[in-house]
């Protein structure tokens, strides 16, 4: 039941924000902040309570809740969390809190409606991470779409309309194909067992013909790799990320992309294991292409948010490659990568947003020498750039190292190619650092360094990324007992 409350808090908090903004715009911010903090507190509490139990290897599903929803279709409201969901939910509310904080000053117009959309997006995302009924999963998958669309559309940058359309239509196209697959699976399972149900655990027992399994899996995969994104389907991402407001980019990069990875791990691998093994080589190849392509594109960008967006494509390539290596160690790396990428890329987007707030541009050729006027921000940016290029001590290193170790056992040559991605990432990261913070100052204006509120945001992110780099065990403990 507590899982339902997590979502209800967000949904009702969103409504409250909207309504309260009519009489007091300030109230909306505080309500939004309280809502995400309450949820974060609930999650931390669950973590402290059940984290130990998982280690002991008892039940992998910590909390379950099921109630009938549309019984005539065999649809139930079935939510549950295991270690993986718990990690992702913690990440959701951690980044959610920061998203509220970093919109504090940025959003001046229509704040009530803004926080409504923000909280509803978070509600959709957390729903995706807990749903264990395929219909419910699809439902939440779509629910997060509309508020995110509105966030980009209303509070985005110049080219926001185009970016918002593209985001919505790409995701919806994938989603509908997934819906077709869900329905086929439902009928095949129903014909076999006589009980028609969308429940995850019942569908796990479905026996599929290899050809049917392949097609059905493709429907799921397309939806997930569009979200991830995998290379031929990535083109919505740079637009959406660069046009969205800072909090929007943070949520997109930190959480929305992760729903794709989560979907593959939770649904594709268990439901269609044989079919997934069959396409493993291709998926790894496309992942590697994504790593290199994303890195090269990032190197060529002049728009700082687009640059960061392409680094996401590159990092998500590691996730895809790692998942389809089918090695325990790579899978742990994938989960680490999901968490650390959310934090490091999120932090870079927050930094980009702060720079944009001060300079009113995203063009890195108009920046330069910012270190002299903003040393504190420069230092933190250096930290996250290093994280993004995979320097030891920081979380991303552990993640990418584990993934490469796992894939090396599966396919040597692809791993070698993937490793070159690390070199490329050094190139684009250092180029960005150099253009923005070092070199001669192009701007004579006096820029104020980070404020206390910004310091809080960046400090939490920095602590998190260092902590994950030094003590990754806390994440792995939760995933280890997945089997």
């Amino acid at each position: 039941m507590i899982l339902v409350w997590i979502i209800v808090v967000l949904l009702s908090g969103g409504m409250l924000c909207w309504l309260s903004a009519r009489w007091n715009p300030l109230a909306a911010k505080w309500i939004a902040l309280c809502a995400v903090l309450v949820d974060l507190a609930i999650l931390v509490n669950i973590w402290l309570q059940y984290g130990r139990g998982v280690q002991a290897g008892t039940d992998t599903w910590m909390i379950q809740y099921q109630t009938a929803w549309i019984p005539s279709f065999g649809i139930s409201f079935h939510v549950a969390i295991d270690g993986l969901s718990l990690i992702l939910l913690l990440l959701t509310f951690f980044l959610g809190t920061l998203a509220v904080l970093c919109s504090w000053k940025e959003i001046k117009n229509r704040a009530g409606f803004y926080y409504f959309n923000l909280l509803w997006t978070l509600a959709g995302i957390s729903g995706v991470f807990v749903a264990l009924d395929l219909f419910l999963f699809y439902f939440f998958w779509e629910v997060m779409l509309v508020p995110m669309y509105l966030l980009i559309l209303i509070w985005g940058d110049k080219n926001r309309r185009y970016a918002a359309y593209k985001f919505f239509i790409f995701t919806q196209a994938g989603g509908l194909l997934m819906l077709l697959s869900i329905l086929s699976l439902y009928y095949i399972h129903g014909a076999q067992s006589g009980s028609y149900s969308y429940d995850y655990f019942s569908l796990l027992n479905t026996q599929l013909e290899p050809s049917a399994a392949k097609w059905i899996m493709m429907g799921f995969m397309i939806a997930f790799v569009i979200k991830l994104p995998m290379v031929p389907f990535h083109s919505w991402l740079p637009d959406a990320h660069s046009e969205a407001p800072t909090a929007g980019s943070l949520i997109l990069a930190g959480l929305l992309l992760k729903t794709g990875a989560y979907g593959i791990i939770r649904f594709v691998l268990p439901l269609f294991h044989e079919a997934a093994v069959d396409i493993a080589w291709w998926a790894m190849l496309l992942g590697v292409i994504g790593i290199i392509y994303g890195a090269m594109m990032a190197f060529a960008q002049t728009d700082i948010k687009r640059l960061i967006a392409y680094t996401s494509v590159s990092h998500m390539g590691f996730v895809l490659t790692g998942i389809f290596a089918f090695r325990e160690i790579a899978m742990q790396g994938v989960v680490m990568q999901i968490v650390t990428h959310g934090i490091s890329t999120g932090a870079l987007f927050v930094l980009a947003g702060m720079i944009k707030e001060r300079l009113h541009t995203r063009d890195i050729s108009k920046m330069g020498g910012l270190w002299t006027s903003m040393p504190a921000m420069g230092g933190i940016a250096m930290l996250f750039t290093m994280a993004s290029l995979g320097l030891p001590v920081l979380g991303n290193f552990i993640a990418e190292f584990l993934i490469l170790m796992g894939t090396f056992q599966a396919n040597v040559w692809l791993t070698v190619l993937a490793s070159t991605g690390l070199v490329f990432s050094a190139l684009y990261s250092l180029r960005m650092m150099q253009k923005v913070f070092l070199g001669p100052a192009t701007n004579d204006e006096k820029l104020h360094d980070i404020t206390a509120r910004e310091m809080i945001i960046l400090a939490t992110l920095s602590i998190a990324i260092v902590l994950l780099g030094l003590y990754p065990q806390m994440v792995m403990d939760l995933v280890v007992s997945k089997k």
Partner: protein
Amino acid sequence: MTHEQLMALLPFMVLATASIVIILLIAFRQGHTVIQVTGFLMMCLVIFTMWYVRDFLPQTIMPLLIVDGYGALFTGLIIFCVLVVGLFSYIYFEEREENPREYYILIFLSTLGAAILTISRHFISFFIGLELLSVSLYALIAYLRTRNNAVEAGVKYLLLAALTSAFLLFGMALIYMDAGSMDFSAIAQKLHTAEQSSPLFLVGFSLMMIAVGFKLALVPFHLWAADVYQGAPPPVASFIATVSKIGVFAVLLRFAQELHLQNNHSIMTIISVIAIFSMISGNLLALRQQNIKRLLAYSSIAHFGYLLVAFLPGNSAGVEAAAFYLIAYAITILIAFGVIILLSAKDKDAERLSLYRGLFWEKPFVAIVLAVALLSLAGIPLTAGFIGKFYVLMAGVQQQAWLPVIVLVVTSVIGLYYYLRIISTLFSDVSVAIEKEKKLHPFFYAASYTALVVLVLLLLGFGVMPATIIPGIKQFLLIGN
């Protein structure tokens, strides 16, 4: 005729009385308000009598009519739509140039035609219902006859409807020649005993499909839709989009069910081709449309294409899906037209998309209502439109009609574009000040707003909790089967 049969027909008789009552009221020179209120009460009375006679169902009134749960469900939906359309009509026509009183006679007659369609089991009642529906519509479409597009739309509808009625009659005649009966069940028996379906029957059915396709605005008989939606007064357009289409679809569905048309391969091919082309062209034509009424016309073409996908399986799941889809669609389209009516100025309908620019910041309530309706048309969760589309897809996948299903998915992604275009217009920055209209009748404005609220709540309610209505639909469909 027995007492039970008479009782079963009671709602329809009350409906027929409604127009006569209105005629009498006009004869006694009563005003618009009195007529409006009486009409509203009469429709409530129809619903009440339907509830009252529920235990007498099902009843077959030989040879023309059958009043069963299926008919009651669709008639109920039709009456519900008329209630809402009537309510919206008041604020629209009260300010217009034309005397609005005869309008209500025509509306109720037309409704009677649609209601007869839902309970007909014979070609004669089929034809009478259809003609009653269309003849009133000719006048309704051109009701504001001084307007530019009104007469054009009316004449276009008149010519095409007359032409397709001729096709319908010819088709019926051919089937009669083949089967020797005009009774649906007798035709079914004849078909059942025959070794294979005769070419005569096939040709006859195809000719009938021309008339039905015209009424439902399916491709390639859709050419009137945009002009008529644009030229007709918005309440009439919403009437065409809901009542007339529900009635015709209901009779088509009953005909197909009785005859087990799903076993007839060539007929199913014809219907899936029509469905596929309707989905594709409806959505493509709407893409660049700047006029919201025309856009809704094209989107309705696509939606009836979707609905035909539910029609293909021909089993009870398909009928349920179609019924749910029609309910969701009717509510949605009533909301959309309700918003257009509320925003229309005295001499001009609010049909240009540029009028809706930034509406959200000017009139948040109306804009949100419209946005919810559009999301429902696009089939996004939390709305009934999503469950409807889901239901239809379920029916299609179950039958493994892969081609129509894939086309449905692809075209609804295309369709998303124009729905999003309107939504992004609603939320865009630059706003055009809409003139503050003088509210002549605060009570009816309040009633219209209340109706919109109720409709939106229904839309969201059915979207989140479809379990509240699906058992009801199933129960209705079971009566008489």
